[in-house]
């Protein structure tokens, strides 16, 4: 019989221990000269929140995916994004400590966790596309295709960023994102050209996501890639007016509030907890 208190203090029960290290441990987090620290922090917060929120959404598939193989694939992708979020939130906190919510003085919660678990929806800077509820598997695949194609292009550009920490995060992340894009593109085409029912679901997903997708300011290169995937899937991109996405300024849908309630409840119940 293992009791809770034992689990919390006895590292031997956990394969990798319970003390998660600062993801930027050993890295010089001084902001290079000529880089606007507050602007850098805002940029990292946006990218970090996109990854954190979509990671949480993808992890909701755990044990519920259509098949064991898909279950593991989506969980892997969720973990990749969580890793990106940790690095980016830690970078944001180091570049501009004023972003980090104030916790009790004796709280051992690191800055990345304070950002993840102790901000309310209005302080999150993710785009609405990341927070929308999962829908069915076709909708999850379609969102992942749009998101990872866009994010991969952004990371390709950030690899040469003047802040070497952000550049290194981007260099690591683009390998992960290339896989996410391949995985979702292949499923998108497979479903769109599969059965009548799977195609119907893809088309429904595209219609549902498109207003939130077209609200985003994405680099032109993204469209080139998407055009190829949509052509292979024989899917037309819908002509619909963009939605009002205030996510980058903290304007979110109720879906984010629900997601955060789920994600943050344990950390908030134990603000002095050590994880």
């Amino acid at each position, binding site marked *: 019989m293992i009791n809770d208190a034992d689990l919390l203090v006895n590292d031997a029960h956990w394969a990798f221990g319970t003390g998660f290290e600062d993801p930027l441990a050993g890295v010089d987090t001084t902001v290079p000269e000529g880089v606007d620290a507050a602007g850098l922090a805002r940029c990292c917060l946006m990218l970090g929140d996109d990854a954190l929120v979509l990671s949480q959404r993808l992890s909701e598939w755990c044990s519920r995916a*259509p*098949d*064991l*193989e898909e279950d*593991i*694939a989506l969980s*892997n992708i969720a973990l990749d994004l969580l890793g990106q979020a940790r690095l980016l939130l830690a970078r944001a906190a180091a570049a501009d400590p004023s972003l980090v919510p104030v916790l009790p003085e004796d709280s051992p919660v690191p800055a990345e966790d304070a950002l993840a678990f102790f901000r309310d929806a209005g302080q999150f800077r993710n785009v609405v596309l990341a927070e929308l509820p999962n829908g069915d598997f076709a909708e999850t695949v379609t969102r992942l295709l749009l998101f990872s194609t866009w994010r991969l292009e952004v990371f390709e550009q950030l690899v040469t960023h003047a802040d070497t920490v952000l550049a290194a995060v981007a260099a690591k992340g683009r390998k992960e994102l290339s*896989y996410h894009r*391949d*995985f979702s593109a*292949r*499923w998108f085409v*497979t479903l769109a050209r*599969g059965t009548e029912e799977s195609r119907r679901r893809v088309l429904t997903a595209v219609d549902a996501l498109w207003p939130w997708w077209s609200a985003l300011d994405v680099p032109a290169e993204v469209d080139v890639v998407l055009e190829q995937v949509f052509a292979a899937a024989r899917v037309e991109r819908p002509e619909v007016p963009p939605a009002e996405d205030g996510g980058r300024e903290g304007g979110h849908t109720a879906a984010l509030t629900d997601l955060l309630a789920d994600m943050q409840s344990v950390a908030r119940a134990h603000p002095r907890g050590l994880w």
Partner: protein
Amino acid sequence: MSEWPLYEVFVRSKRGLNHVHVGSLHAPDDKLALMHARDVYTRRNEGVSIWVVRADAITASSPDEKDPLFAPSGDKVYRHPTFYDIPEHVPHM
């Protein structure tokens, strides 16, 4: 998704070693089988190369044929290179 075909998965754990059978999985097509194999069997850095092959493309020996197939080699010890000393620096033997 019981209609998905079964694939057998072979992973090479590092360069120079053989691909080894690690398990099986279901997938709708060859390319997705490869992706599934990557996700299911190489999450902990196990591999540098993956093969997947549809299980129905494998012709297997049957346990009923065990004697005609394998028994004749049982008494031919001279086929085993066990009479040599293997130098210590030769790995994977």
